[in-house]
């Protein structure tokens, strides 16, 4: 009789461990999915920028500098490839240059009023929002995952299967500064 009890308890313990392990993997996959989601949104921005430049070109002939800057930033961001650190830097630079482009566009009344420009402004600010919301979701998911694998009892399993905490997104110092507009 006591043998059965031991088997039963051992079975329950194994089931519990399996459930724990699966929950960790579920959380980790959510983190990875959230990371992929950021990529999707960055790609969307890359696709939007050429159209934006095309539509403002006529109005902003004197601002060739800023437009080239945006174009260059986009190319750098695409070229950064899979190196995460380089990519984050390049994308942040692209964000800043797009924001300065809009800041400069404020000085052109016709452009500001144009339906096309309004629509692009909406699309781009939505894209910026999507990127930051995707990052926020990534951070939320990562925090949950990190907390899970750093607290009892999951930390024991995490140590056994060498699961490491994921890195949180932090805002670059330069990103917190207001955009400087030079005329």
């Amino acid at each position, binding site marked *: 009789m006591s043998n059965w009890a031991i088997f039963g308890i051992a079975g329950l313990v194994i089931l519990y461990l399996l459930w724990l392990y699966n929950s960790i993997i579920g959380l980790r996959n959510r983190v990875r999915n959230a990371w992929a989601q950021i990529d999707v949104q960055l790609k969307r921005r890359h696709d939007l920028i050429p159209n934006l430049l095309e539509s403002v070109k006529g109005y902003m002939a004197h601002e060739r500098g800023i437009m080239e800057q945006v174009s260059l930033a986009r190319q750098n961001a695409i070229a950064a490839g899979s190196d995460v650190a380089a990519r984050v830097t390049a994308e942040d630079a692209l964000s800043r240059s797009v924001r300065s482009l809009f800041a400069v566009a404020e000085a052109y009344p016709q452009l500001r009023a144009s339906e096309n420009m*309004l629509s692009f402004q909406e699309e781009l600010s*939505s894209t910026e929002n999507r990127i930051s*919301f*995707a990052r926020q*979701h990534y951070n939320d998911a990562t925090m949950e995952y990190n907390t899970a694998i750093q607290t009892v009892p999951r930390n024991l399993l995490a140590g056994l299967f060498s699961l490491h905490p994921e890195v949180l997104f932090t805002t670059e110092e330069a990103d917190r500064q207001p955009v400087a507009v030079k005329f």
Partner: protein
Amino acid sequence: MSFFNEQARRRRQARWQSAACLIIASGIGVVLSTVITPLLLILAGAGLRLLVRFNVFSGSALSALHDLGKWTAGHVATFYSVIDSLDRIHRFGDIGVTLTPLSQMSSLCLPGLATAALVWLVLRSAIARIGGEDLVLRLKCRAPNPHDLEERQLANVVDEMAIAAGLPAVRLLMIDSPTINAAAIGRSHRTATILVTRGLIDTLDRRETGGIVAHLIATVVQGDTGLSVSVLAVFQTLGFFLTLLDLPLRLSASRAIGGAVLVALGIKRSPEAVAHIGEMLEDGLNASSIEPVNRIFAWAEVSKWHLAVIAPLLPFILISLFMKLVLFLWTALLLGPPLGLLWRTRRYSADAVAVQLTRDPDALALGLQKIAGSSFPDGASGREYFFVHVPLSSIADSNVTRRGVTVSLHPSLARRLARLIRMGANSVGPAQVTWARLAELSRQPARAALVLGLMLLLVPLVGALAILVAYVTALIMTIVLAAGLGIARAVLGG
């Protein structure tokens, strides 16, 4: 971060309350057993007697009839022993004298419980299948126009919030109505739809719209759309049984029950038809469904001949009225409050999730204030709980009164704003000071003492009410059960 705590607290509360709701809802099945058990016995007895009369399996039918008769007689005897035992209770320890025979009778409640559960399951699956599509049709919703800047902005906001919540893309539909409101429907987060009135995007700016949409996305993420299906199914189950009791009294009852059977068999499938039958069942909860009884009595007063025609119906009318009284008391006093509490808790929780998604409590606070000054789009009445907020102006005509539930299913604006302020909203506009003062007041000891005093007064009152309800319920159940079992024994040939 306080909104994580807030969400965790809400989820814990909601679990307890939904468990309480389930227990009370299944209690209705127990009440109904008093009718259903004798009815089943009578039907079984009559069937067996027919078999005996036509000499089909008459041997086994006779023995089954005999066993059933003995079983029923045994329960009738137990029933009397319960009543007798009441005299023998002198101390609290003697309570076992009554409870032992009472527990032997508990098997009589099973048919009612099973029937209530089955009806609930069927109705729930029917409502889930149409997934709120009837509302889409009734409100004449349309897809957003990609060439309209405002609508494209809204579509972007919805996408952004879905990304923030880690959801796949959510369907967005527009309601062409000047009212300011928005709703989330669907049976799960995979099939969720968000409905937004044109008035909302005309009035609210991008930030406020974001707050409102975040609340709807939170509703979807929490699975509230699925929960609302269950809540609606509870109401319709109750309505089904009340309509069943009305069957000999009004014609519309037979239409509703017939429709429900067609829905259960899968013959009627279109969203409009299923929703219409659901509404007919809900009408059974309406206090005005008693009206036909009045008409019958009025007709009976015309002459003695009229009365003679009505006379055979009288026992049924009396039982029906008794059961209706009990079910009304159950909904109003026992089912309504926990259900309202549950739904309000989910709304607060969705507010907290919305703040987590936008990290901007002010966006939702500002948006809610604008919605509170508006009303519903036409044709949404009866489905208020899908919407972000129920403005005070439209409460009078809402499900709050229609379903005989004494409490509101939606939280008040002041409470929601007070909670948002606690989560960090600090620019709620000129009204913010007032709400903040309200929130402060609630924390003042003097007011707390007043509230505590009122609560102390209320507890014995509510207790007395509960005892009264239990007493009336027990009394009516006893009468109905005794009558039913008596008839069953007569049919079974005691």
